[in-house]
């Protein structure tokens, strides 16, 4: 510890550590639990945005005491206390909220569920990969929260509306229906296979998923394969980040000869949550996609709190 240079570097290190200590000190314990045990309502923590949507749809909004930072619909969900990320709750905060029921759609850590249930809290872990599983999940949530009847009503109403949508194209032969390619990520190119609910969305909307023969959830596909499939419609649907727009697709090598690109039938303005989030709003996604595939008129439609205007490329 002799030279001046070394002393300077030690000071820098000391400052870095002191800063770290100070940050911890200042930012610690920001959340104080309020002992509002006066209500005898069920206290639910949701660890996934689709679960939050289902809970709101079942009219359980005032029972929710904790959500994740991805729970953004409806707008009221954003004002509920955040306990962490998708399937990754901050255990301290979760326990301090004294929930009765924790509902997740997959945990980041395998042993979180066990740990929570050891604390006497009921845990529901619902992985939703298909419409059938969605209805099962709604039923389970309904049973656990005493809203089984509302859950059954919701399921019946969704199924009825799906039937109404499908009446539009029932008379058209499957081989005449538009072939749809859903692009979920561009690097590597990812689409939805037969096992995914997105495949079902396409089918309910009257299209045919070009990737329906791949028996996986979200397979990576070679761009050559897409050229071979020659879809009539391409849906660009990225989770959160921005991806290439419709115009850029033609720049991809060899893609200019794809039917969808040639005719400009590339849809990039469907709100991704309507197709990617397995909850009650999937119905809206089906409706919008159906209107794209078969609607010949410019229509305004409601998608949750957003209004979409369909025009242009719709044939």
């Amino acid at each position: 510890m002799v030279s001046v240079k070394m002393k300077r570097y030690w000071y820098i290190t000391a400052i870095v550590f002191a800063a770290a200590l100070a940050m911890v000190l200042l930012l610690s314990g920001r959340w104080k639990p309020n002992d509002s045990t006066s209500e005898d309502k069920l206290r639910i923590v949701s660890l996934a945005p689709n679960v939050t949507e289902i809970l709101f749809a079942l009219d359980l909004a005032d029972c929710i005491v904790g959500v994740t930072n991805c729970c953004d619909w409806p707008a009221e969900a954003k004002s509920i206390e955040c306990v962490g990320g998708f399937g990754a709750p901050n255990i301290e905060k979760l326990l301090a909220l004294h929930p009765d029921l924790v509902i997740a759609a997959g945990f980041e850590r395998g042993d979180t569920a066990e740990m929570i249930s050891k604390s006497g809290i009921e845990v529901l872990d619902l992985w939703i990969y298909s419409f059938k599983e969605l209805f099962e999940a709604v039923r389970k949530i309904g049973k656990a929260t005493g809203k089984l009847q509302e859950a059954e009503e919701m399921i019946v109403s969704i199924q009825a509306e799906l039937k109404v949508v499908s009446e539009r194209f029932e008379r058209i032969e499957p081989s005449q229906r538009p072939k749809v390619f859903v692009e979920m990520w561009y690097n590597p190119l990812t689409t939805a296979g037969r096992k995914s609910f997105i495949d079902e969305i396409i089918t309910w909307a009257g299209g045919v998923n070009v990737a329906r023969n791949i028996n996986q959830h979200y397979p990576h596909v070679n761009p050559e394969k897409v050229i071979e499939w020659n879809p009539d419609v391409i849906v660009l649907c990225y989770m959160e980040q921005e991806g290439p727009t419709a115009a850029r697709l033609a720049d991809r090598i060899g893609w200019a000869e794809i039917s969808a690109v040639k005719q400009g039938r590339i849809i990039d303005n469907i709100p991704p949550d309507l197709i990617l989030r397995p909850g009650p709003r999937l119905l809206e996604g089906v409706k919008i996609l159906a209107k794209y595939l078969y609607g010949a008129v410019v229509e305004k439609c409601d998608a949750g709190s957003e209004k979409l205007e369909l025009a242009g490329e719709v044939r």
Partner: protein
Amino acid sequence: MYSKRNWLIFIVLLTMLAGVCVFSLFAGAVHVPVAQMFQSGIIRLRLARILLAIVAGIGLSVAGVIFQALLRNPLADPYVLGVSSGAGLGAALAIILGVSVLSTWTLPAMAFAGAIGTILLVYTLARSAGGVVPVHTLLLSGVIVSAVLGSILMFIVSVCPSQNLHNVVWWLLGNLQIFDWALLRIVSIVVVCGLVITLLFARDLNVMTLGEEPAAHLGLNVEQTKKIFFVVASLMTGATVAACGLIGFVGLIVPHSVRLVIGPDHRRLVPASAMAGAIFLVLADSFARTVIAPVEIPIGVVTAFLGGPFFLFLLRRRKNSYWS
């Protein structure tokens, strides 16, 4: 051997450790009133984390000291012989084969098995006919095995279904939250035994740094010493990785920085690194779970963030180097 200055440093380090631990009990997302502290489950969770951080800090720093001494390479860290890839592969297999849901022990056990298996593989590959394991061969075979296992891991990660992928990637980032006291107990036993053995044989580490031939001339049984220390360091690293995942930088930075203050004598370096490593990790952990609560920063990110500037500093000083 233990001069007054050294006792002072040890006392300072011990006090700092105690202080950081108490500090860390109060740090977290949730504010726990002092009156409720003793019954609070949250405080018990924090205590488990602190204990694991201490154990992991000791395990990784001492393993780092051992590897740096035996391999005579300043870039050696506990993962240099491929332990990280092996443990990662073990954990990934556990998650993907679905066995990790059988019990909370399966994942750590398979990660540990992966770590130890890798060390055995590396050691066997590096052994020459006479039973001698030259150090540079060991290093090389470690790097190669690490690369091969890493590529297998990448292959598995690329073809497995999306849900499992997330769990694997998360695990690789390292996490000090532990829910199982029994696991903590076992890891502590392994690390503490390793620490005790290292302390007892620290003088031999001093001799090893002179070089293998001079060490042999000085009467040290070089091969046996190497074997013992490799086993000890590997077990400590394996146990730490099994419990916490991969936490980088600790095993590399802490030995170097402590060596700058206390000198290269391993009889002092080993206990001091152990304590410094514990302090560093407890502090990093309290940072990781507090600063952007309720979201938790992966511990590996925090150790790199706090240790990175320090590492740059080390690179810049070539004089006064104990490695020239």
